């Protein structure tokens, strides 16, 4: 009836919300995944602490429109334990724990420690470039736009290496020819 990812449960961390907002592509979250879940810590970080900065207004509006849901982690103790065991930030541990609790099929994260831990639990991880690739694949944006967006991400502080950018271009190119 619908594409797998369209119906899947998705959890996002703060970095995704902020970076996409910085390049004016926040709406892609809704277009690609329909519904996103975040922890209350992420909401606090992006909207409350970051009020007036990138991602704050967009996130608040999305929560108001209820396509972003703010959820509390049920097992807070588990999150705390993960934070201590793996030596990571509590908010990041909570994001991974939430993804496990809602049985997320995709975790959107740019923070290495979130990605690393998520992979250990077998969660599928996507970063900003992965999301842009997915948007291009579904023709929500053109290949050319995806390339422009990647360049803007770099200018806006998401400074990936030349090697990564090249791989991204190659990937988009191979999709285009299909």
């Amino acid at each position: 009836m619908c594409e797998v990812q369209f119906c899947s449960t998705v959890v996002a961390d703060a970095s995704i919300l902020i970076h996409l907002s910085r390049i004016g592509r926040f709406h892609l979250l809704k277009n690609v995944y329909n519904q996103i879940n975040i922890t209350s810590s992420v909401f606090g970080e992006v909207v409350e602490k970051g009020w007036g900065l990138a991602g704050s207004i967009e996130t608040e509006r999305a929560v108001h429109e209820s396509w972003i849901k703010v959820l509390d982690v049920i097992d807070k103790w588990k999150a705390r334990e993960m934070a201590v065991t793996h030596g990571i930030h509590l908010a990041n541990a909570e994001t991974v724990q939430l993804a496990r609790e809602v049985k997320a099929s995709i975790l959107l994260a740019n923070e290495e420690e979130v990605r690393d831990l998520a992979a250990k639990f077998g969660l599928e991880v996507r970063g900003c470039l992965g999301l842009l690739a997915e948007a291009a694949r579904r023709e929500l944006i053109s290949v050319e736009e995806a390339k422009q967006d990647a360049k803007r991400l770099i200018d806006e502080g998401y400074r990936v290496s030349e090697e990564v950018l090249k791989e991204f271009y190659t990937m988009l190119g191979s999709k285009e020819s299909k």
Partner: protein
Amino acid sequence: MTVAIPERIKERFLKEILEMYTKGEISAGKAAEMLGIPRAAFYQLLAEKRVPLPEKLNQSILKELKRIGTSKD
């Protein structure tokens, strides 16, 4: 009581934090917390100072792109 911290110490501190971030020793969330600024302000700093992503993160993104490049269609 408030203590005024000299500018040069603040700058030095910022430099150290950015270095720790780019070496992958601390996450962006932790770095922002240590600097006492919101996460979005930290990313703004990364943009202004043209700080590269940690190498481990680059490798992780590369792996992700290679995986989705081969798994679709």
